């Protein structure tokens, strides 16, 4: 176990390092994407640009720039190009919106995904099962921003049931917060519900045929008891681990599209805006942050997975 943790940690560091280098290089490669041209303004003179280059350290060799930036990432001193504000402060400010989205939607998609999957499996082959399958397939086939835009059009614009985009902090007005979060939660959940219910359904059907379930049935346990005590417990393992990873991804800024459509001003939207403005420092910090959360939670999920499932041994 200890060796496993050490190994995972080592590979995590390698991956994070590579991600930071890659992000840095992607933006270096852009023609005319030199930050000094933008920082110095549209009518700037060559002298101004030279001064900007010097004061921001763009005249240094690229590996130096990388090293300086990375040092700042760890000391929390990264400053963005466009608004020249502390990037980590910005992320901290954006995090509540992203967390609200991730936690709310995460709970919805987990519960509904399980409910639909369970229902589908119990009615396998019958009409309800087919209907749910079709619904979940439509769910995984629709882009989240299309769902979001249509929801906003119908429920916010036409019927005025919900507010038209934006985020209100929970601490400011809990009811208003809820009002603003419901549509984003639904939009983001649809895809995951569709997917989770399908995973759970096939996982349950698989487990039903396993020996230990047959044994349990043979022992005369009620079908319901078999389903809950034996089948569901086993089938939930992949669902929970999936949930951990998806949840991590959303916190790490993967819900870019949802946040943009609903203008939640979360981490993902900040990332999208920074990419469009070719503002490297925030993009760098957010990708590292996102990757870190994902890698960390996937390691945690591995450990939990191993603890839950006796068939798996962690080899080091």
């Amino acid at each position, binding site marked *: 176990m200890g060796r496993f943790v050490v190994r995972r940690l080592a590979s995590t560091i390698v991956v994070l390092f590579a991600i930071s280098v890659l992000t840095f290089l992607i933006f270096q490669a*852009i*023609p*005319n*994407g*030199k930050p000094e*041209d*933008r*920082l*110095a*303004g*549209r*009518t*700037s*003179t*060559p*002298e*101004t*640009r030279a*001064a*900007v280059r010097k*004061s921001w350290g763009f005249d240094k060799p690229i590996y130096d720039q990388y090293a300086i930036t990375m040092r700042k990432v760890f000391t929390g001193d990264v*400053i963005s190009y*466009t*608004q*020249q*504000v502390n990037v980590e402060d*910005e992320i901290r*400010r954006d995090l509540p919106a992203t967390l609200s989205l991730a936690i709310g939607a995460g709970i919805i998609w987990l519960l509904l995904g399980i409910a639909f999957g369970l229902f589908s499996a119990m009615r396998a082959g019958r009409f309800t099962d087919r209907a749910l399958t079709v619904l979940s397939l439509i769910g995984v086939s629709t882009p989240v921003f299309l769902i979001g835009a249509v929801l906003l059009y119908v429920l916010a*614009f036409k019927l005025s049931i919900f*507010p*038209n*985009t*934006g985020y209100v902090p929970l601490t400011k007005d809990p009811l208003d917060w809820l009002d603003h979060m419901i549509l984003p939660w639904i939009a983001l959940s649809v895809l995951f519900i569709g997917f989770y219910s399908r995973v759970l359904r096939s996982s349950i059907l698989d487990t039903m045929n396993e020996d230990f379930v047959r044994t349990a049935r043979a022992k005369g346990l009620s079908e319901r008891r078999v389903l809950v005590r034996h089948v569901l417990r086993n089938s939930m393992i992949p669902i929970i681990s999936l949930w951990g990873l998806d949840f991590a991804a959303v916190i790490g800024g993967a819900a870019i599209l949802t946040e*943009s459509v609903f*203008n939640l*001003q979360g981490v993902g939207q900040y990332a*999208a*805006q920074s990419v*469009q*403005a*070719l503002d490297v420092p925030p993009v760098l910090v957010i990708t590292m942050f996102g990757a870190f959360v994902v890698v960390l939670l996937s390691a945690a999920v591995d450990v939990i997975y191993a603890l839950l499932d006796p068939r798996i041994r962690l080899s080091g």
Partner: protein
Amino acid sequence: MQKGFRGLGAVGVVLAVALGISACGGSSSSSSSGSPAQGRNGGEATVLMGTAPDFLDPGLAYTTQGAAADWITYTPLLTYRHAGGKQGGEIIPGLATALPSISKDGKTYTFQLRKGLTYSNGQPVKAGDLEYTIRRSIKVNWGGKSFFTNYIVGAAAVDSGKAQKISGITADDATGKITIKLIKAYGAFTNVIAFPAAGLVPTGTKFTNLSNSPPPGVGPYMITAVQPNRTFTMVKNPKWASFAIPDVPEGHLQKITITINSNTQAEAQQVLNNQADVFDPGDTLPPALLGQIRSTAQNRFAPVTIPSTFYFFMNTRLKPFNNVKVRQAVNYALDKRAMARLASGFLKPECNFLPEGIVGHPTSCPYGDPNGAPDINKAKQLVQQSGLAGTPITVWGEMRSPRKEYVDYYTDVLNKLGFKATPKIISDSTYFPTIGNEKTKAQTGFADWIQDFPNPSDFYLLLDGTAIQATNNQNFSYVNDPKIQTELAKLNPVPTSQLNSVASQWQKLDEYTTSQAYEAVYGSEQVPKFQSNRMNFAASTIHPLYLDDWLNLSLK
């Protein structure tokens, strides 16, 4: 994401013209011109902004959104009149007692600071603070700092780190006398001193971006409660009224909350439903709501034309635009009515480079009525005569709407004329550096100019042959015409106050430019003035330079 922050370069915008009323068919009251008027004092209002200010720090702000907050918080020695239309472009004394006295050679400006001024934190204002303020703007790399470094003696040396202080600015704290020495005469220097970046901050203010907690200033309002990209609040500066500066009154509203939301549709909806009070004129009204706004909110909505030039540049160094016939053909073929529809009606068709409201604006158009149908046949004929039909053309454009749509349309027009045109749309943030780079060899594409101050020379910077440079070039058409150069040499040094005496010369020059078809101009931008029914719509104004003028907002 692609909402309107005005050109990276120009503190967006400028001079005035009371077009608001004529443009909307006289449906609204005579609001946008004239005096600040009779608003009720007190109360609070919410202003919605679609694009966050680039900076709230006066030393760094360069977009209209930033300037909107800063110009009523950090008053410079000179400032603009708080009025809409032409009057808004007038330079008036701010913290100075009067307009400066200018030496005969136009190189020395002398100001007298008002007495008894204090910053919002109670610290007394000293004459020496001006040098510090300008030095700070230079050192924190304000986007327009070349206006300082190019003209003030010793400013460039501070920029490059060779000097500690700007030698060209001297001040006497005891008497309040300030003298600024220029490298060369510059007619528009009073406009430079009126930039919010020259709005005084106390000596000792840090040389870092203070946008999150803006430094104390001398102005009718103070910026508080800043949450970047989300909100900030303007509250009245209690000390201001006692300074009794005649043309910079105290505001009406006690408190103005600015909320930033990039979803302009949601914003417009809120104003329409009276949940918020002011729609930011720097934003584009969503076409989806226009019809509803025009029909149900006509007494609190008006489009206001701002002096600006929207045009397609045509690189005179490259095929096919090195041929004047091709350039003229483009001017004949553009259907400006179509472009106005792409802008949801927020474009006033024009064909000359100097827009209406700028001294020297020509009144006629050699390529037919800008509001009429284009002459495609004439255009095709010209292309045929040029023998350049079939030339491949890359048309450059920005991502944001409706600029992308303009370029898509223009590409189609070029194809109709027989060229092989394809659009190339790139991200807004790299657009101008890219087309301004000589190596890009951009043939043609979108360009705009919303000027820094009310002076035709600011527009002609874009056609000045000596301004051509390898990177960050603004003369996208690479115009280097001896006739234009001789005229500019004569006209550029004329001080802003004497512009009217050379109006006819500017007009002749612009008519010549149009006849040579150096650019394909299609119009001036219009901005929306749109408020809730709580607001005194008639008393509020759209300022020609900064668009927002929160000093003139008041409740009914």
